[in-house]
């Protein structure tokens, strides 16, 4: 099914080694984290 293929592709993609010196992109500056729950 489409769902399974999408999951499989994502899992495969995750196994690709990241290049040396890879820095993950910074989190978006705002809004910040939710401490309790979103209304």
């Amino acid at each position, binding site marked *: 099914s489409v769902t399974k293929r999408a999951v499989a592709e994502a899992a495969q993609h995750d196994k690709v080694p990241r290049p040396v010196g890879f820095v993950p992109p910074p*989190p978006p500056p*705002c*809004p*910040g*984290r939710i401490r309790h*729950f*979103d209304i």
Partner: protein
Amino acid sequence: VPAAPPAPLSCDDPESEAAAEAAVNYINGHSHHGYKFALNRIEDVRVVPQGPNNDIIFLELDLLETNCHILSPTPLVNCTVRSFTEHAVEGDCDVKLQKLDGTLSVLASKCHSHADSSEDVVQVCPDCPLLVSLNNTEVLEAVSAALNHYNSKTTGPYLRLLEIGRAKIQYHPAHIVVAEFAVGATNCSVEEAEANVGACQLLPEDQSNFGFCRAALVKRPSPDLQVDCQLYGHQVPAPNIPLLSHDTS
């Protein structure tokens, strides 16, 4: 060579969080009604430099209502945020602060609070009671009955209603009115109040003369009334006082 402008502050930056903490303390410290609010999310932060070690900080905050009344001496850190199914109340605040030589001070704040939509609560919890207007007739009836009953059973000072904080009504499977309200101790005993309630004056505005009550009035299937009041000057909570109790469980 002029210095490069500082990178914009992130909402989750410790500096933003410190400013938000100062803002929440200020908002709770300057409120006289309702409940203490806790920080849920920093929605936006903007810093406008004014000079060396002098910034103006604008914050947009999303707050959530806790179960601590604003008159309660309980520190905010020990207050529990109302859960979603309790029918949460949200506060949206715009705050202007100054950070001068590392010291934060609030210059202005503006907040609006609103309850979460009933539809949202019902979707998650179809049987949960929902918030109703504080001047709802059934709520006023429940608060009046609860306070009268508490006063009739207590040996302490006569308590007078200060404000109703929140109220909910559930219709199924039982018809229950739940209310929370703040009270103030007066200079009268209950007997003196029965003789002339108009002569009873609230004691000085000291935290120890305030209290908080929770009441549940069951209207159907069996009439029942539960009242639990705690005076902030007395750390041991008063016991539950049942009235018209058909079920003692």
